[in-house]
C-alpha cells in the first residue's frame, strides 16, 4: 500500500523517473510503469496510459486535483492518486 509513496519520494522530478503527478506542466516523457491493480491498469491502458507511450503533461489542478496529459494526440484527465502510480522516464524527450 505505501510502496508507491516511497517510490514517489525516491524518484524526484529532477531525476530520470518521475511520477505523472510530480511532473511539471509542459514536461514530456515515456511511461515506464503503471503501479496498480488489474482493474486500474486496464482502465488506464484503454485510455492510452501504458508503458512505452509518450506523454506530455498539460496541467495539474490545485489542491490535489486531477492531472491532464496528452497521449496519442488526445487528452486524458487522471485523478492525482492514480497519477502518482504512473512512472514516467523524463530523460527521453
Amino acid at each position, binding site marked *: 500500500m505505501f510502496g508507491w509513496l516511497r517510490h514517489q519520494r525516491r524518484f524526484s522530478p529532477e531525476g530520470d523517473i518521475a511520477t505523472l503527478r510530480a511532473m511539471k506542466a509542459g514536461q514530456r516523457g515515456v511511461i515506464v510503469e503503471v503501479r496498480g491493480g488489474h482493474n486500474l491498469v486496464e482502465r488506464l491502458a484503454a485510455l492510452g496510459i501504458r508503458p512505452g507511450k509518450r506523454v506530455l503533461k498539460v*496541467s495539474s*489542478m490545485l489542491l490535489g486535483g486531477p492531472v491532464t496529459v496528452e497521449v496519442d494526440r488526445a487528452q486524458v*484527465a487522471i*485523478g492525482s492518486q492514480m497519477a502518482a502510480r504512473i512512472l514516467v522516464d523524463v530523460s527521453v524527450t
Partner: protein
Amino acid sequence: MRVLLMGNPNVGKSVVFSRLTGVRVMSSNYPGTTVNYTEGRMKVGDEVVQVIDAPGTYTLDPTCEAEEVALKMLEMGDVVVNVVDATNLERNLFLTLQLLERDVPVVVALNMWDDTAHRGITIDIEKLQEQLGVPVIPTVAVSGQGMKGLVEAIPRARVVRHATRTREERWAAVGSITDSVQIISHRHHTWLERLADATVQPLQGAVIAAVVLAASFAAIRLVGESLVRYVLDPLFNTLWMPVLERLSSALGGQGVLHSVLIGRFVEGAINPVESFGILSSGLYVPLAMVLPYIIAFYLILGVLEDVGYLPRLAVLLDSAMHRIGLHGYAIIPTLLGFGCNVPAVLATRILESRRERFIAATLVSVAIPCASLQAMIVGLVGGFGARYVLLVYGTLLAAWVVLGLILHRLMKGFSPELLIEIPRYRWPLVGPVLAKLWGRVSGYLREALPVILVAIVVINLLYAAGIFDAVTGLFAPAMTRLLGLPGESIPALAIGFLRKDVALALLAPLALTAGQFVVATVVLAMFFPCVATFAVLLRELGLRDTAKATGIMLVTALSAGAILNALL
C-alpha cells in the same frame, strides 16, 4: 436480424445510428452521452433490420453501469458495426480485436474520416481490412458520407474468430497493426489548441469557466425573457384571450364546464396563471411560461455539449466535488438536471460506484430545480423582487453542499477518482444543435403537457368534491407551526408530486407574503421529486435506496423550510 453499434465512448455511434435509422437520439461531444440503448430500423437490401445504439465502452470487461449495458447488448446483436475513431486508431482497435475474438460477424466503420487529413494521419484502409479480416468503411457520420457504403457492407460482415489473447498480447497486436497501416506526420500545435489547453489550467481555466457559466446564464435569460415578452405573451393576449372571453360568456360565466375549461375569475376577469382551467392556465403555464425557458436552456446546453466544454468543467470542479463524495464528472448529470431531473438521474450511470450514483441522484432530486420549476420561480417569485429569487437559489445551493457533505461523511465506501477522456473541441454545427433542441423540446411537449392538463382536471375535481378542504384541515396546524404557511398551500404541495410548475401556479392566488412564497417554493422544490423522476429513481436505485432518498428529501425540505421560516 439485429445490427448492434458498438465502439469507444465519443466516437459518434449515436450520430451513425441517427443516420442509419432516421431515429433521433441525443449525441454530444463528451464520452457517456448514451447510457442506455435505443432501437431503430433500417433497410439492408430488401430486408428491414433492427439497429441498436449501445453505450460506448473501451473494453468488454465493463467498469461502470453504462459499459455493462453495452456488454449485455452484445448478446443480442447478430451483426456488430464497430464504430472506430479514425483519429485515434490505436486506442479504438483494442475493442475491435476483442470483438473479433468473439463469435460474432463484424464490420468496422472508420468514423471521423474527414478529421484524419488535417491532423496529419494517413491510414491504408486496404491493408487495415486485410489485417483485421473484416470490411472497413471510412465514414463521416455528421455529414452522412460513407453511410451507403456502410449499409452495403453489412451483409459482408465476417466472423474472424481470432484466438483469445491476453491483454498484453492484444495491445501488442494493436501496436503492430497500427504500425503497419498508419503514418502520422508530426505537426506543431496551433494557437487554437494552445487556447484549448488554457481551459484545463488551474487559474486561467477557473476564469474561463466563470465567464462561460455567466455568459450561458445571461444567454438563457435573454432568450427566455425575449421569447416570453415579444412572442408568447403577445400571442396569448391578442389571439387566445379574446377566444377564451367569448367562450366564457357563451358558457354563461359559470358552471362545471366553465370551471374545467376556463376556470374561475380573478378580480372579475380570466387570469392566465390563476384561473386554473384547461384552456387558460392549462395552456398558458406550460406554453407561455415554461416552454420559453425550456427552449432557452436546451439551446445553450446543446451548444456547450457539442463544443466539448463539459468534460473540462468536470476537471476544474473535481477537487470540490470530491468533498461531497462525487468526482468531477458528476457535474454532467447535475447540469442535465437543470433541464429535467429524469435524464439527470439516468446520466448518473456514467459514475462508477453505486455510492456515487446514490449521492448524485439524491442531490439532483433535492437541490437541482428543473427548467419548468425554474421558469415558474423566475415568473412568480420574481414578482416579489430579484432578491427573493436569489434567496431560493441560494438555499438550494446551500442544501446541495450541506447534504453532500453529510452524505459523504455518513455513507460507507469512498469516491473513486476521476478518469476521463477529454474530447477535442469542435465547432457546434447548426443542424445537429437544432435537431437536438427539437428532440428535447418535443419531448417536453409530449410528456409534460398531458400531465399538466390531467393535473388541472384533478385539481378541479378534488376541489369540487371538497377533498382538499378535508386534507387541509388535517395538516394545517403542523404546516403553520413548522413552515408558517397557511393550510391552503397544502394542495399545492400535494400537486407538486405530479408537476412542480403547476404546483407553483396553485400558490399564486393564495396572497402569500414574499417570505411565505419563498418557503413554499423551497419546500416544493426539495421535498419530493415529481412522479416522472420518482419512477426513474425507482428503476435506477431500487426500492430500498429510493425509500432512503425520499426520506432524505423530506427531512431536508422540512428542515430548510423551517429554518427559512424562522429567519424570514
